[in-house]
């Protein structure tokens, strides 16, 4: 059920000079959000910014009495994210959702490998919880520019999610892009289980910058593993009304057609997207 909630800010935790996690009292949305879905946020009362901006739901907040809200992981890059960064308890932020096609959750014995780049960590808290609840062995490959921009590492670890970290400056985990350890693990998995029929299933989920998603989809394909990627395109409405957030999706051997990523996605199969 789609709702527009004038949500009160419950808390705002600044994680770094750019990143924050904002908690919003929107239980009506949080209760029905599936991993990978998003909300359209209107941060201003005025016409600046005019349009809403999409955010993956990061966490669903629960108390003894039930669901009390949701959080968003935000990186300050524009007007809306600046307002979210500066927001204080008691402010209200309009939240429309839940929207979009969620990740498909798999069951054991298949394993889940989640690949996050930067603020692309956002959908993996709820996805990780949903996978663990089904008993699925789950790993998070998490890349950022520096170790100081790797957030919630303890949160994932304490829940039993295995972590593989990578930073571009080498200050934590592997030095370089997160795709490197991902490819190593895929290669190792293949050598461990040489025959396709003996392979345990691994499904790869990814969210992050588009070049990373392309690399993940490519590497997953190379090793014959399915992938689901969550894309972020410039979005005007989140409802399928404006046709701005389209992404080319494969259509036969050579063709493609534009699909609205707000309603056809944001989650797509990695092998169905025609990367630029």
């Amino acid at each position, binding site marked *: *059920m*789609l709702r*527009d909630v004038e949500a009160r800010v419950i808390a705002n935790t600044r994680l770094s000079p750019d990143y924050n996690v904002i908690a919003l009292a929107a239980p009506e949305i949080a209760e029905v959000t599936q991993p990978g879905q998003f909300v359209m946020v*209107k941060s201003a009362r005025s*016409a*600046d*910014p*005019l*349009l*809403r901006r999409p955010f993956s739901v990061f966490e669903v907040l629960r108390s003894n009495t039930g669901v009390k809200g949701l959080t968003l992981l935000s990186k300050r890059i524009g007007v809306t994210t600046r307002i979210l960064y500066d927001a204080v308890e008691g402010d209200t932020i309009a939240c*429309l959702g839940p929207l979009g096609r969620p990740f498909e959750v798999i069951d054991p014995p298949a394993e889940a490998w989640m690949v996050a780049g930067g603020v692309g960590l956002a959908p993996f808290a709820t996805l990780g919880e949903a996978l663990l609840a089904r008993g699925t062995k789950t790993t998070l490959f998490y890349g950022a520019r520096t170790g100081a921009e790797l957030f919630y590492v303890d949160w994932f670890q304490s829940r039993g999610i295995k972590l593989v970290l990578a930073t571009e400056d080498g200050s934590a985990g592997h030095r370089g892009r997160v795709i490197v350890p991902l490819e190593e693990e895929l290669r190792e998995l293949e050598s461990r289980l040489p025959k396709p029929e003996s392979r345990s299933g691994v499904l790869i989920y990814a969210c992050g910058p588009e070049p990373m998603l392309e690399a993940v989809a490519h590497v997953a394909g190379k090793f014959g593993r399915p992938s689901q990627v969550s894309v972020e*395109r*410039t979005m*005007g*409405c989140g*409802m*399928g*009304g*404006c*046709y*701005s*957030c*389209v*992404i080319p999706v494969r259509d036969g051997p050579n063709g493609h*057609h*534009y699909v609205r990523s707000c*309603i056809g996605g944001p989650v797509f199969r990695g092998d169905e997207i025609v990367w630029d």
Partner: protein
Amino acid sequence: MTRLSGTDLSVQIGALTLKNPLIAASGCFGYGVEYAEAVDLSTLGGVAVKGLFLKPREGHPPERIVETPSGMLNAIGLQGIGVHRFIEDKLPELRQRRATVIVNICGSTLDEYVELARILSDAEGVAALELNISCPNIKEGGITFGCSLHGTFDVVSAVKKVTPLPVIPKLTPNVTDVASFARASADAGADAVSLVNTFLAMAIDVETRRPELSNIVGGLSGPAIRPIAVRMVYECRRAVKIPVIGMGGIASARDALEFIIAGADAVQVGTANFVDPFVWKKLLDGITDYMRRHNISRVADLVGTIDTTSREKEWISS
């Protein structure tokens, strides 16, 4: 949506009666069905669906929109499923939801408009045709009709000859005198005119010196254009007797009333629907409220009631 007893919100467009003056603007509401979860489509005066060509169209590559002060630019390029798939895939649901469907049609040639009008006149559940002769974002047609008085006259009269449906040309503001285009439309037998489509505009990323839109230029919509659109509706109201459907940056009941008072029989709402898909009830309740406060029982009695008695001399363009 509430309808107070004694409040008549209906609007007459040719033989068509709209139950209220609020129409979802073409290009801002998908095919209508996308919004069924947010608004009961049967409560809208009309649903103008996304512009349709005979054949499916891909549209422009991204980036397709960019936000500007109190507005947005778009250059979607009329991505669409084509008229046949619309009739098969979308119209049945619109019918079932009892929407008053206004189909926006777009052609590269006169024959294409005529063909579209023929096909849609035979389809069940189409209430009216809006002629898109004003899309600023595609080269190969539409706008060539909308920027020429003869072209406008010709396309309206050609379509009128083949359809019993009300015909509503949608006018571009990118002309010197929009009222003359309203007049050409009325002379050709149009049942109403709708205006304005978007203003041709552009935005540049100064760091990269690249245009923000892949198409370089696009159409400006949103509150930024509202005062210009109100002025153009006012000019058209004075130029023609047929109904005028006004649009351009309407985001509140106040804004809708401004257009109605300037001379719009009905209004379309586009960009505001992106910001708030639940905007419709607020608009209708606000209009009803206003009518009650001002003791007006029929919205038709409010149309064009702008009081210019003391300011007439200041109006220099007529």
